């Protein structure tokens, strides 16, 4: 399967990450060489100042892949739903 045929990633942002990124949701093609949550986060940071303000390495960012919490080493594949958000504060 070539990159052109691969299904896109569905990206979701919540709370202050959503506000800084400026969108709640988008679809992107998984870039070559990006295969983990950590690599995806680093690549997203390079997309502009809003992304950097939301996802810079020193920020407390959590991630879920396909609606399960996922650490930086978790794999990311085409078609996945990947969400970035702050530490949760419900209850």
């Amino acid at each position, binding site marked *: 399967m070539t990159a052109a045929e691969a299904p896109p990633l569905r990206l*979701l942002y*919540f*709370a*202050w990450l959503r506000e800084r990124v400026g969108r709640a949701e988008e679809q992107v093609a998984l870039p070559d060489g990006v295969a983990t949550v950590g690599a995806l986060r680093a690549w997203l940071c390079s997309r502009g100042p809003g992304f950097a303000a939301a996802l810079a390495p020193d920020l*407390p960012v*959590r991630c*879920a892949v396909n*609606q*399960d*919490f996922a650490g930086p080493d978790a794999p990311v594949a085409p078609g996945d739903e990947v*969400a970035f*958000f*702050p*530490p*949760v*504060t*419900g*209850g």
Partner: protein
Amino acid sequence: MARVGVQTAAFDLGSEAAALLAGRSDIGGLGCFVGTVRDSAAGRPIAAMTLEHYPGMTERAMAAIAAEAEARWALLGCTLIHRVGRLRPGEPIVLVLAAAAHRAAALEATGFLIDWLKTAAPFWKKESFADGGEAWVAARATDDEAAARWRAGAVTPAR
């Protein structure tokens, strides 16, 4: 099987408890917790609290938390309801019910459920202050510590 819900409307403690207990005579104790919106944060008056969540994942996470409690304490009933949207001071945010044959299990499970809801379900709170300011609530180390109390020998709450 637990009842899990995410809703904007207020819940009714009395009818939720009655539904859980209805027709049951094996239950000896029902533990409950209701979380409500306080009128100030660190002394700064609050006009409203807005709760955002991750639809889909929220329900999955709440069901997983309830299943963990049901397994650990052999619960005879479990209800988790969390509100989202804009809430005013005094309004209820979250309801936890846990029923068991004996009180210790019911009350321990109630504490576990609210501690894990606070740290392992994807909800975020934004405070709107009376002075017009707004701020996302920061996660608290004390909440992580409360959740960690339950971790020994068990599934770690995912972060």
